[in-house]
Every structure is written in structure tokens, then in C-alpha cells.
């Protein structure tokens, strides 16, 4: 299986701030429609792709989910000078915002988030101070409120206009959380498995796992797998806080045991571990207690759903430029494909 870097590039470069997932949804829909049995979008914007089982036998209802949305900015106001004021959508560190380039709204209007020049800082402490959201604005070059409003206004989204690049085994992109999961899911949908598969590309994960909640209620799965791009912790700033260095880039699929949103099903976790071992793929367990995913909501849906999370490790998620390992994407794909093939043998 070759990684389709062209499609992954398009997926990661597309804007999809929570609540504005439409560009990502249409990219995915166009891609998977030829091999889907059924395609539909629900009231919240979740995209459901049905793939019926091959043959007869045990009819498990299996849900595979990946979220389409990413963190970003939402325009709240256009001021008198033509600057766009904004609020943050999802977990964006405000220290990332100064001196960044963004694209605004469906017209992709280029803008910059400026900052007071270093020359204007008088006290040493000014350098440590984090600018408040009130001090930051997007400059699209407009010189009046009217000029700016003709191009962008309250309710429009803004996103980091990062170009996706391959550096050897490394892929640099924005929104690897969770376009990587979306990519894995589009690849898995090319296959037919011995159970009814519902692939759900969810919305609004970054603002409280909201899309997944209704999707799981709707489909009522027996089992669910969540595919993610998860934060690696093998870099100096994370190590400094004494938290170890797992997961690591290039360390293989990341399997969740427990995080802030979920206890994963032990049988599914074991299946993933056993499959990794039999394939000779290295795997890593996600450091417990950090982050949360759609699994949190899906596992609590209805009378409860057995759930597992498989992720590709990415450094610097929720920033304009995250890094991941192409080899790890391969490994996750292989692990998921093989695990799904043997899902019916699982004794629960």
C-alpha cells in the first residue's frame, strides 16, 4: 500500500475549523463515493459511509470514526481600521499566534497576525508577557471597515495557510490531528470486511466531541475504532516537564489504554497488540491520562460501546506545522486492516 500523498496533502491543506468542515467533507465524499455502498450526511454535518459485509456470518455493527475538524480562529468583529478581531476555536495556545500567516473564509483572503515590534518593548518583562486576544488582530491589508467587510466578517473562519511538505520520511502539515485519521479511514474503506462497517467522518471533535455523540447514537455500533493523529511527546519541551518521551515519532501505531475521555475496551486493545506483534510492527501505548478523543462519547453511547483508539504519533499538533512519520502512517494502516480482518474471531 502506497501512501497517497497527493490526497493527504489536499486533506491537510483544506480548511476545516470546527463547525466549518464542509471543504474537508466534500474532499472525502468525492474520494470514497466510488467504493461506498451508501453515503449520507446527518444534521450536524457528520459524513456516514456504509460498507456492507462480505459473505454471511456474524453481523457485527462496527463503527470507524475520524474527525474532520481542526482548531483555528473565528472572526468576531471588523474594527474601524479594517482589522479583523477573532476568537480561538479549540485548544490553540495563544503564544502561537503572533507573527503567523492565515487565510480567511471561503475566499481564502490572505492575512497576517502582526505583533508589536521588538523595538517597542521597553521592559524586560514585556518579552515574557503573552499578548491577550484583545491585542491581536488579523491584517488583510484593508484600510477601512467597509473594505474589510466586503471580504470577511463575523462568523468567518481563519486558518493557518501551511503548505504540506515531505522531508524524507517526515510529513510536515497543519491539521494532522485528525486528517491523518480521515486519510486512514478513506484507505480502509477500499476494502470489504466480514461485518457491516460504518465509517463516520465526524464534526466538532475539537470543541467537545460533539459530532461523535450523535453519530454513535444514530448508528448504534457494537464496536468502534477511532483513528487519530495524536500528540507525540518525544521533544525537548515535553520532556522538560518530566513526562517521559512516549509516544515517539516513528515508534509505530499508538494504542490508547485510557485517557481523559475513555477507558478503552481491553479485548480490543489486546487484539491490536496481538496483531501488531504478529505483523512485526512496533506499537506504543499512549501515555494514560492525556487528551481525549471521540472515543469518550462513542463509548458511552446507548448502553455502551466497546471502543479502541489507534493513532499516528505527530509532533506539535494544534500548531501551524506538525510533523509525522510516513512509515507510521503505513504501519497504522496495516495494523487496522489486519485487525479488522480478524475482528469476527474476537471472543468477548
Amino acid at each position, binding site marked *: 500500500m502506497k501512501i497517497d500523498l497527493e490526497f493527504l496533502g489536499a486533506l491537510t491543506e483544506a480548511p476545516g475549523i470546527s463547525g466549518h468542515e464542509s471543504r474537508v467533507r466534500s474532499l472525502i465524499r468525492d474520494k470514497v463515493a466510488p467504493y461506498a455502498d451508501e453515503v449520507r450526511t446527518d444534521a450536524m454535518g457528520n459524513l456516514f459511509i456504509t460498507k456492507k459485509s462480505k459473505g454471511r456470518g456474524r453481523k457485527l455493527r462496527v463503527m470507524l470514526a475520524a474527525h474532520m475538524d481542526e482548531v483555528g480562529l473565528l472572526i468576531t468583529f471588523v474594527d474601524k481600521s479594517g482589522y479583523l478581531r477573532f476568537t480561538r476555536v479549540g485548544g490553540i495556545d495563544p503564544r502561537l499566534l503572533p507573527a503567523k500567516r492565515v487565510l480567511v473564509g471561503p475566499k481564502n483572503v490572505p492575512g497576517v497576525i*502582526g505583533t508589536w515590534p521588538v523595538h517597542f518593548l521597553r521592559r524586560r518583562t514585556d*518579552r515574557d508577557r503573552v499578548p491577550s486576544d484583545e491585542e491581536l488582530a488579523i491584517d488583510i491589508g484593508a484600510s477601512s471597515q467597509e473594505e474589510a467587510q466586503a471580504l470577511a466578517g463575523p462568523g468567518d473562519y481563519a486558518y493557518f495557510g501551511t503548505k504540506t511538505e515531505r522531508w524524507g520520511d517526515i510529513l*510536515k502539515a497543519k491539521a494532522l490531528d485528525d486528517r491523518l485519521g480521515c486519510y486512514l479511514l478513506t484507505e480502509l474503506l477500499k476494502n470489504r470486511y466480514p461485518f457491516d462497517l460504518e465509517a463516520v467522518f465526524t464534526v466538532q471533535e475539537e470543541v467537545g466531541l460533539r459530532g461523535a455523540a450523535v453519530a454513535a447514537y444514530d448508528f448504534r455500533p457494537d464496536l468502534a475504532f477511532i483513528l487519530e493523529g495524536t500528540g507525540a511527546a518525544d521533544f525537548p519541551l515535553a520532556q522538560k516537564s518530566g513526562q517521559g518521551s512516549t509516544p515517539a515519532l516513528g515508534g509505530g501505531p499508538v494504542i490508547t489504554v485510557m485517557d481523559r475521555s475513555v477507558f478503552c475496551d481491553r479485548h480490543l486493545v489486546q487484539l491490536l497488540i496481538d496483531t501488531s506483534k504478529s505483523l512485526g510492527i512496533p506499537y506504543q501505548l499512549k501515555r494514560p491520562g492525556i487528551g481525549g478523543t471521540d472515543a469518550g462519547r462513542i463509548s458511552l453511547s446507548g448502553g455502551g460501546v466497546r471502543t479502541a483508539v489507534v493513532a499516528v504519533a505527530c509532533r506539535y499538533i494544534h500548531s501551524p506545522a506538525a510533523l509525522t512519520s510516513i512509515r507510521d502512517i503505513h504501519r497504522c494502516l496495516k495494523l487496522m486492516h489486519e485487525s479488522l480482518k480478524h475482528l469476527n474471531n474476537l471472543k468477548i
Partner: protein
Amino acid sequence: MKNDPSPLQGEHKKIISLLNQLTQAHGPSGYEAPAARVVSEKLKPLADEVAIDRLGSVVAYKKASRPKASNGKVLLAAHLDEIGLLVTSIEQEGYLRFTNIGGIDPRTLLGQEVFIHSSLKPGKKIFGVIGAKPPHYQNPQEQESMVPLADLYIDIGRGGAAAKRAVAVGDAATLRSVFSELQGGRASAKSLDDRIGCAAMIMTLEHLSTRAHPRDVYAVATSQEEAGLGFLGASTSAFKIKPDLALVIDVTHADMPLAPEHRTFSLAKGPVIAIGPNFHPAVAQSLISLARRLEMPYQIEPLAGNSGTDAVDIQVTGAGIPTGLVSLPVRYMHTPVETANLADIERVARLLATFISELDQLDLAWKD
């Protein structure tokens, strides 16, 4: 200002393309070669001779159109270098630690992409990111203060051995930033400070190719302005050339959100002409009179002492050189999203070209 033609009709695309090429080139202080190549290429068709001098400045010589024995020389200077980073160590895991070259603002570094000027693999495109810890791994107080420079690092996506094969301690790095054309004839890029001055200088020579000018013109893209060691390229180039007059083109602060009005200048309101001890009063006053005569808008920047530009050292080179400074307003200076207006470039070029073509009439005598 009805006689000040809108410079962006027809010229617009040309200026955008020139500025795009100049700002996409990388050239931190002391490592200017890649930027020097681009500037040289632009100057060659406009000059009689282009060379790179001992400290890395690009020197273009354009002979006077009316050669006489004592017609003299004029120096045009815009600095070539940009602020950057310098690799100080390579960690076992392959992360690069760095310090700043010039006035880098550490508050703007988190999450930026960088280009490494590799001495081990020259010409190879080695990129990296200045990694930011995601909120998932932070404790609640962390977002209350900026990450200090000493804690930042560059991740080039290679492990220790591979990183050491690609990068050496002492290699420089510069921020990558896509050139963006904004609304209203504005553009945003890295290193507008001072490639926008280089652009204005190139366009000044372009004007001079169709105008008579009484003096030899030396257009110099100076090296090592930003490093904080002095204005090294400018002072050595000026010493070698020994001009009778020098005109420096640099940037100044433009208005921006929350910035005090009295410390900034407006975009697209014309060249900013500096007045103060760093400048010869006759040069400054002649520039102002000329702007008026051309019915070109202009702004005045009083500078009490050190202007922080090449003019500081050029003025006191040799037996002293009458010096003037014309600046272009730039927002968010020393960040990768510096923003300026294209009309300002054309106006500065037209002002300086006219000034140089009329140098016969300039009276530098002290009126006291």
C-alpha cells in the same frame, strides 16, 4: 497630490514579482550569499559593473551619463541581510539549539518554519520547525508566559546521527514565510527589512537608465547591518568607494493595532525623510523640497541620534560623508509577517532617481 501618478498601474505586477523574489531569498547577517545572488542578478542589467566585495555586500557601479573630471560619486545603500538564527548545538536526539542573529523577537518564534543554511550540504533544502508543545501536555500556568529563547529548538525531523550529517554548529537559519499579496496594494513577507529597500534601490537604477545623471552611482546592497556589531558592510563599502554623498534606504515603523500614533508612519503616504544629527541638513531639506516639487506625499521622521541604519557608520566614514535617509514604513518589523505598501517603493525610487539626476544643483555649503 494630483501630479503624483498612481504607481501601481502597470508597475504593480512587476513590483510584486521583484519583491517576492527578493524576500524569498535567504540571507541572515554574515550568511548573505543566497540573497546576494538574487540581488546581483537584478542589478546586472542596470549597471556597468556588479561585484561582491570583501564583506559580502553587492556593489553595482553605474557610470555618470555626463562624465566630467570632477563629477563625483554618489552612494545608494540598502542592507541586504536579514535577522536570523545561529545553531549553537545539536542534541543527541537531533534537535538544534540556537541563538539569535540580530533583533529576533522570541515571542514570534513558536511554531515557525525555518530554512537551514547547511554548510555540510550546501544547496540542499533542509527545513525545520520551531516546535510548540500542544496544550495536551501543558500544565495550566504554562500559557501565562512566553517560552524563552533558551528553551526553543529547531526540529528538522532527523535523529541525532542524521541531523549531524545535515547540519553543523555555526550554521545559520532563517524563518520561512510565504510572500502574500494583501488588499489595498499591500504585501506581507519576511525580510521586507530591508529587501524592500533593495527593491527601491533596484528601481532607482532602473529610472536612472532612462535619465541623465551627473555623478557615478554606486548602488550597494550592504551586508551585516542587523547583527548588532555596527553597520559593517556599509562602513567598509563606503570606505572603499569614498562617495561625495550617500543616500540610505531603510525601513521604519508603520501604524499597527494599538501602536502609538506619534511613533509610527502611515502606509502609502509617501517616503519617510529623516531629519537629525545623523543626516546632512542640506540633503534632508533638498529631499523634502523635491518631494514637494514632484507633488509627492512625504512624511518626516525626526531622529535624535543614532538612526539605527547604515547611515550611522556611513556618515563618519573617512573624512565624513554628507548622508541622507529615506525610509519605507513597515508594519510588524522583525517578524516573518512584515507588511508594507507597494506604492511606497515606487515613490522612493522616483524621488531618489530624480534627486540623483539633479545632483548638479545640490548645494552642500553650511549656511551660517
